[in-house]
């Protein structure tokens, strides 16, 4: 069992609050992503768990043992750093064996464990090479192996793939997920990439300005964001400032049914807007079409100039400057101090065949 419990954790650097009182339990074998923009406090939180920073307030317990004041070397954790942090004067074997040598394990056991972990990360036969003789992806695998070989209870990953290209990043994140599940290890993964977080997490913790915005499963965070920040940060979203009155929200030339009164923010996912024939109501002017291969995004403007992105079928073809109708199928309204309200249209009809290429 390897559970991490954070209770009332806060961290201030001088007068700057990096993290505000935070409670979180990471269960055994879980992979939790800390997701947020730069300066949100996600790396600080990871460093607090790893023992590289000491919290200003609160406690950290691993398997029920208070580790708040313990240095990194006395915690059952291992960190994979963004910059790989490999020691260039040591071979791959030397890098991986370092932690085992410090534990004074017999030479034969060290060799056997290094070989095993190299096999696990797909680098068998690379032990004699220097880090400078490896590619970026291979270097990050060595960093992962170096952390895994000491068999930590908690694996901490601080944006480990940030310096790699997209293709390699996707491949490595899948490999990390596979390894984590195979070993059943608890992992905390820091990223600012929402795709990465959605792809590999059991749960996502969304952070902003040192505060926890929402904790939940990837699908839940995506479908039911609890704050306007989460709505805007996770996935593509049209965020419009509006006003609630008379049972509807008026935002950027759009009027949709909604309860309440006063200022509010209207959030609509591009895939929750369907193109319709002009006579069916709300009109937009097409600015351009962005073809992503699997789908098409229509960048359009409402009557008052507000931008609206509409995701639609890849077979749909509309021209720049063309005026088309839209139907909003789902939307969420965020009003200050209130729970978000989610709405769904009951009047969705399919887009006419004439619009398909």
């Amino acid at each position, binding site marked *: 069992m390897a559970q991490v419990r954070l209770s009332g954790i806060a961290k201030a650097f001088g007068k700057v609050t990096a993290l505000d009182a935070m409670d979180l339990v990471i269960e055994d074998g879980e992979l939790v992503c800390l997701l947020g923009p730069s300066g949100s406090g996600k790396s600080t939180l990871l460093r607090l768990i*790893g023992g*590289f920073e000491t919290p200003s307030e609160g406690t950290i317990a691993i398997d029920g043992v208070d580790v708040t004041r313990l*240095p*990194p*070397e006395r915690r059952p*954790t*291992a*960190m994979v*750093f*963004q*910059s790989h*942090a*490999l*020691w*260039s*004067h040591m071979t791959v074997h030397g890098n991986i064996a*370092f*932690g085992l040598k*410090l*534990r004074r394990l017999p030479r034969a056991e060290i060799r056997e464990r290094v070989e095993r972990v190299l096999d696990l990360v797909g680098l068998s036969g690379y032990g004699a090479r*220097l*880090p*400078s003789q490896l590619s970026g992806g291979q270097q990050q695998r060595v*960093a992962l192996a*170096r*952390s895994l070989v*000491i068999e930590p209870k908690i694996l901490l990953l601080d944006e480990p793939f940030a310096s790699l290209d997209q293709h390699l990043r996707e491949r490595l994140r899948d490999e990390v997920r596979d390894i984590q599940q195979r070993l059943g290890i608890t992992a905390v993964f820091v990223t600012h990439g929402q795709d990465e977080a959605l792809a590999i997490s059991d749960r996502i913790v969304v952070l902003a300005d040192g505060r926890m915005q929402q904790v939940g499963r990837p699908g839940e965070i995506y479908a039911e964001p609890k704050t306007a920040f989460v709505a805007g940060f996770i996935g593509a979203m049209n965020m419009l400032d509006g006003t609630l009155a008379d049972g509807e929200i008026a935002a950027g030339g759009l009027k949709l049914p909604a309860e309440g009164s006063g200022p509010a923010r209207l959030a609509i996912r591009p895939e929750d807007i369907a193109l319709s024939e002009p006579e069916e109501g709300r009109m937009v002017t097409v600015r351009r079409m962005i073809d992503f291969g699997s789908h098409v995004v229509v960048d359009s403007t409402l009557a008052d100039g507000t931008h609206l992105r509409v995701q639609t079928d890849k077979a749909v073809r509309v021209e720049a400057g063309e005026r088309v109708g839209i139907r909003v199928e789902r939307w969420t309204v965020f009003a200050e101090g209130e729970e978000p309200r989610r709405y769904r249209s009951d009047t969705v009809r399919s887009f006419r065949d004439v619009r398909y290429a």
Partner: protein
Amino acid sequence: MIAALRSGVAGGRLSGLLLVALPVALLIWLVLWPVLQAIVGTVYFPGTGFSTASYAYFFTDAYSLRNLWLTLWVTALTSVLRVAVAMPIALYLRFRSGPVAALVQALALFPMFVPSVLVAYAFIRVLGPNGIVDTILVALHLPKLASPYLTPAGPIIGLVWDGLPLTLLLLLSGLGRVSIASVDAARDLGAGSFTLFTRIILPRIQSSIIVTLAFNVLGLFSAFTLPFLLGPASPEMMGPYMQRTFSDNADPLNATTQAVITFAFCAAFGLIYVRAIAKGRKAPA
């Protein structure tokens, strides 16, 4: 188009050559030419031909050899002491920040702005006979300590203090190549301070330490002011020895011979420096 590019490249080469021409000319005029003159002047004598008598005299004269040995000993010990004193400060400054670190840095770099003559007289006022330390000891009814003034320890203390800033800056530059993440990674795996220093930091700054030592040796071997003002009269370091041979003894041939020998030692360390720089450039970051 290609012709224009070629002419641009040629123009760039010419301006590059012009830029290095002045320092190269100064190097030839002020260093290489006098060195050549000194070497030739100590082995070739118009009318009598070649002779290495002055070198034979230096290497058979007990006093000269004692001076050379003292210079080597002071240079070696001072260099090691400078690195030993500057290293903990450099490590602290590399891995710490904040107002205390800024104060430590300011204090450590302060000697850079104090002329050597002032350092020497400050030393005499503090550690010399009847200096501040003696006065305090007497006031406390404690026995006086033997003053390092006019002993080999005198110039060593003065030279360590005087050369600390440059040593610190050179070590800090080397430590800049050791990322905080690589240190954190070692700590994370269980490394204590000693292991961190010996297994992670030291191997990464080896070439910087060699450069620092070579730089120190180059300056120390021919140091004059502090050894002259704080050191013993006999034996004496090569700097004061050369000066005394030249002006007091009015013996330019032997003074020049001593200078050539000093230059040969410095050139050997210069070679080590150049090799360390070349190795550092080849090493992966």
